[in-house]
Structures are given as C-alpha cells and as structure tokens.
C-alpha cells in the first residue's frame, strides 16, 4: 500500500508539490500570525499588569519627534528635556498618588560601553520612583547609590555583576522583570548619575545650551493616580500638566487602546489572509483528490477486483493526502517560526507595542490547534472523493479496456 501511495505521489509530482506548498504556506501564515498575535497580546497584558505610570508628562514638543506609543513602549528613546520645576507643579494635583521624574540619557552601544546592542540609559529619582521599583524591587532601587545600576531583562554585557559605561564601572544591583518593551534593554541609574554622564557627552552640548544644565532638567514625569477616583484624578492631572506650560500628558490607557486598535486591523488582515490561504488549500486538496479518484477510476476498480476493499482504497487515497498535508504542516510550522521574526520586524517598523514571546507550552498549543484545523480541513475536502470510491464497480475490470 505504501508503495502504491508513493507511486501516486510520484505520478502527480507537480500537483503534489503545489498542494504541499500551499498547505505549508497557509500553516506558516497561521503559525506566524498566532505566535505574533499571542506575543503581542501577552506583552500588552503584561504591561498593563505591571502598571507603572497611569499618566506620563512629557515635554510639550516631544511628540514632534516621537510617537506616543513609542514613548510608552520603548522606554526612553529620545533626548527630550524640560525644567525640573514641572515635577512640583504637577505633584499637587488632586488624586495623584505618586509622582516621579526620569531623565533620559543617551543610547549606549558597544563602542562606548560593555553593553551589547543598543542600550538606553535612564535616570530615576530613587526617593520617589515607583516604576522601576515595581519591576526590580524597592530595595534594589534604594541600593542604587552613585555607582549602582539596575538592568533590563535583555541587557547584555554584564561581567562579574558589573557593567562598564564610559570607562566607569557600575555595580549591577538588580534586574527588572521582562516587560516586552524596549525597557528590557535599558539601564537604570540614579538620576544625578545619568545627568552627570550626559553633561559631558559629546554632541549633547546644544541641548544644554537650549535647556540649561542637566541638573535642572527632567525628561518625563511619571504619575500614579488614585484608582478609586480615576476619572476625576485623570482630569485634574491632565489639567495640571497642561497648565505647567512645558508638558503634555500621555494617558497610558488611551495609548494602550490606540495601539490595540492599530494592531487589531493588522491582525484582522493577517487572519483574513490566513483563512483565504486555508480555503485555497482546501479547494486544491478537494480538486486534486476528486479528479484523482475520477482519473484513476479504472485503476481503482482493478484494485477492487484484485482484492482491495473499499476501506483499503480509502486508506490509499487518505494516505496520499496524509503525506501531502503532513509534509505541508511540518514545513509550514518551521517556516512559521522563521517568519515570526520577519513579521515582528515589519510590524515594529510602523508600530510600537510590547512583545513577550510565547513560551514552549503555548507555542505547542498553537501548533496543535493549527494541526487540528488542517486535519479537519483536509478531512472535509476528502469526504466527497472518498464517497466516490464506494461507487466503484469491480466488475468494470472485466469489461473495459486498458488502464493508462
């Protein structure tokens, strides 16, 4: 039987290959889609759970250089500054529980430092901070001092618990939990430490000329609002921020909704593409096996005459399809994992979002789901051809001419 299955596949090489390819492609799209979608949803959920700031006050003109989702999800990507007095102005707002400023330093790379890849330097006010405390622990933040750093979960280049920044060694006192954002590749230090590193930075002089000495500047202010009175707190916080004259508010929940909406349309498109591909694969499978049974009527009738039961012939046809679909699924899953990186890259080009890759168990569940879908789809496409087999009449072998 195996031999006859392989023979039939060989007989229809081109057709078989094209079916296996289209199964592989649709499996690939589904797997890629599932992995990325799952990763993004997990990331969004994580960043919501981790809370952090409800509102971020950023320099008024910052949004000219950088998008809001980017600011929220990419940590501290830009050299944007405003006077530190803004912290006190905002702090008094009703319903604002905590206020803490941050200072964005430069992006570090292996040229200057022991870090690997692009790493951002962020200064926090250790006395008021609640964002990094939530990710790395309050004790760690308290232990920062002027030669300590807390690293993001994806920061590389830590040796012996120390990290080198511009020839200066810093002790790593803590690691932040994974956030799925660029925050994971950030290094956090005391705000004054980062200010003094930046002060002497080549190429940054024009910022200090424009805004004044770094010691009097902040890049953003993180606000934690009273959850029980959120709407009222939000209104008064927004008003205070706008009143300050130098800052604009970024409301986390609004940004999350916005980025969700953006991603939703992208994913909807992908889902439609995946479904279309699956339908194409189904039609192809159907056409292939329908015509296969039809074209091979004489051959199959002969097999009936020489001892094959209907069930045997069904196994023959189903086995043929099993090989095609099986190969397609295996290849598709592998390609899906590869394409995941590519799709993420494309999405990240245009959108900012947190991403936490699916774990092995979740990936496996996803693969299983895709496999089940395709097994069902192929079972569906083969029902009719298999029924045709029931109508084959073994006595035609006695009556008809040669078999091609």
């Amino acid at each position, binding site marked *: 039987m195996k031999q006859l299955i392989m023979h039939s596949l060989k007989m229809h090489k081109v057709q078989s290959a094209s079916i296996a390819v289209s199964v592989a492609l649709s499996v690939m799209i589904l797997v890629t889609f599932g992995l990325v979608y799952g990763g993004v949803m997990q990331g969004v959920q994580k960043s919501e759970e981790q809370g952090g700031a409800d509102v971020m006050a950023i320099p008024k003109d910052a949004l000219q250089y950088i998008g809001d989702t980017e600011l929220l999800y990419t940590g501290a990507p830009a050299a944007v500054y405003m006077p530190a007095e803004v912290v006190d102005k905002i702090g008094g707002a009703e319903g604002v529980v905590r206020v803490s400023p941050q200072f964005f330093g430069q992006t570090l790379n292996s040229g200057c430092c022991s870090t690997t890849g692009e790493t951002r330097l962020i200064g926090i006010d250790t006395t008021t901070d609640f964002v990094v405390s939530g990710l790395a622990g309050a004790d760690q933040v308290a232990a920062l001092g002027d030669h300590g750093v807390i690293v993001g979960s994806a920061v590389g280049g830590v040796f012996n618990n120390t990290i080198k920044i511009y020839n200066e060694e810093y002790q790593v006192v803590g690691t932040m939990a994974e956030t799925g954002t660029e925050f994971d590749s950030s290094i956090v230090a005391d705000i004054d430490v980062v200010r003094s590193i930046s002060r002497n930075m080549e190429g940054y002089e024009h910022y200090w000329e424009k805004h004044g000495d770094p010691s009097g500047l902040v890049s953003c202010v993180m606000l934690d609002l009273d959850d029980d009175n959120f709407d009222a707190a939000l209104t008064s916080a927004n008003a205070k921020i706008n009143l300050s004259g130098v800052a604009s508010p970024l409301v986390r929940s609004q940004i999350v909704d916005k980025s969700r909406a953006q991603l939703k349309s992208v994913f909807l498109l992908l889902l439609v593409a995946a479904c279309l591909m699956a339908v194409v694969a189904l039609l192809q499978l159907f056409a292939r096996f329908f015509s296969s049974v039809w074209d091979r009527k004489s051959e199959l009738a002969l097999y009936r*005459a*020489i001892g094959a039961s209907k069930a045997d012939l069904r196994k023959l046809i189903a086995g043929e399809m099993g090989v095609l679909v099986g190969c397609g699924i295996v290849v598709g899953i592998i390609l899906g994992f590869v394409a995941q990186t590519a799709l993420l890259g494309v999405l990240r080009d245009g959108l900012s979002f947190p991403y936490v890759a699916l774990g092995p168990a979740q990936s496996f569940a996803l693969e299983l789901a895709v496999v089940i879908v395709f097994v069902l789809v192929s079972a569906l496409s083969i029902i009719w051809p298999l029924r045709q087999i029931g109508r084959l009449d073994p*006595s035609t072998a006695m*009556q008809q001419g040669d078999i*091609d």
Partner: protein
Amino acid sequence: MALLEVKGIAKSFDGAEIIRATSFAVEPGDIVAFTSPSGSGKSTLLSMAGLLLTPDSGQILVDGGVDALSLDDKALSRLRQRLFGFVFQSTQLVGSLRAIENVTAPAGFAGKLDFDPVERAKELLVQFGLEERLYHYPAQLSVGQKRRVAVARALLLNPQIVIADEPTNDLDEESANTVADALFAYAAQGHALLYATHDAALAARAKTLMVMKDKAFVSAS
C-alpha cells in the same frame, strides 16, 4: 468439498436478460471452459462467479457452504483475494506501473504474507520468459508479453481458482501456448481454472466444457 458452488445465478442489464439461471460447481483440479458467441455473456458469467458482479438471483457458495453474496465488503474483498486470481480480457495492467509492480500490486492489499511478493513476482515473470522485461512499462511490452504479466499477477497470491477471460485472444500460436500452458500447469497443482474462449482447441483442453443454451450455460457432455 466444492471450492465454489454456483446455484442458479442470472443477470439482466437494463431489462435485457443476459444470463439465465446457470449452475455449476468447482472442485480442486477442475478445469472448466466457457464458450459462446461474442457478446452473449461469458465475461458477465465469469464476473459473477468471481464475485466481482452481483447476480440478480441465485446463490454462490464458497468454502463448502458459506453464502458469499451475504458477506460485507471487507469480508468479500478478502475472500476474492484469497480465492481468485483474474486474467482479464483486456489485460488491465496499470500503465504507470512497471511490469513487476503490476504483478506485485495485489500484495499491496493482502496484509502480511508468508512470502516475499517481489521474489515471487520475479520467479513468475522469469518462468514466463520475461526476465528481460521486469522493469518495463506496459506500453513497452507486446500484447503477448502483457498477457503473461497479467497471468503472473493473477498467480501472485496463489489463488485457489484462476478465472481467465479469453486469455489467448489476440496472441500468435506460440504466445498463446505459453500463456495457456502456464494456466494449465497451475491448475495441475491442485487449483481450479475457469476460462472463457472462442478457440476450439483451447476449449478442448478443459475437463468440463460449458456451452450456452437458451441463455444459460450448461455442460456440453
């Protein structure tokens, strides 16, 4: 004990009566020839006897009394496989399979065998003088060679009864003799042979000759 007992089977196609109630029994070693004018129903009768075609009425008993027509598809297929080897009127070789693959095809549906079907296929093809043609496709074979491949296929699973529908048709005398000799030799090993033929000489080699009378086949003796 009869290998096969055909009791009063009849068949009509589209209201036209082709075979009227025909009965006969087949024992090991039996050689039965069926002759009748062209288009009168030899192939139809052999199809029914070989359990390929269901008669409109009558009974077919196998294994000393089992009613073959009441079996389900699976059991019937197994029975067909074990009991019969067919040599069809038009050879019915699969064009995309090589000679040896055509011969081993029945093994693909026979489950586990206590012999190697490829070895047996080779033996048979060599025995029929086709050692040079094992890997040829049917289109590359002569009519006589194809017929010999078809006989080899019929004998592959050592059936108890060989049913051959005009096995020597279209063959020159020498090829016809090779094919006929192979079939008779197989029957001589304690198997049975049923065949249809127009050839009087071939018909004469049968132990029993069945001729058509009033649309029923009856023994000529």
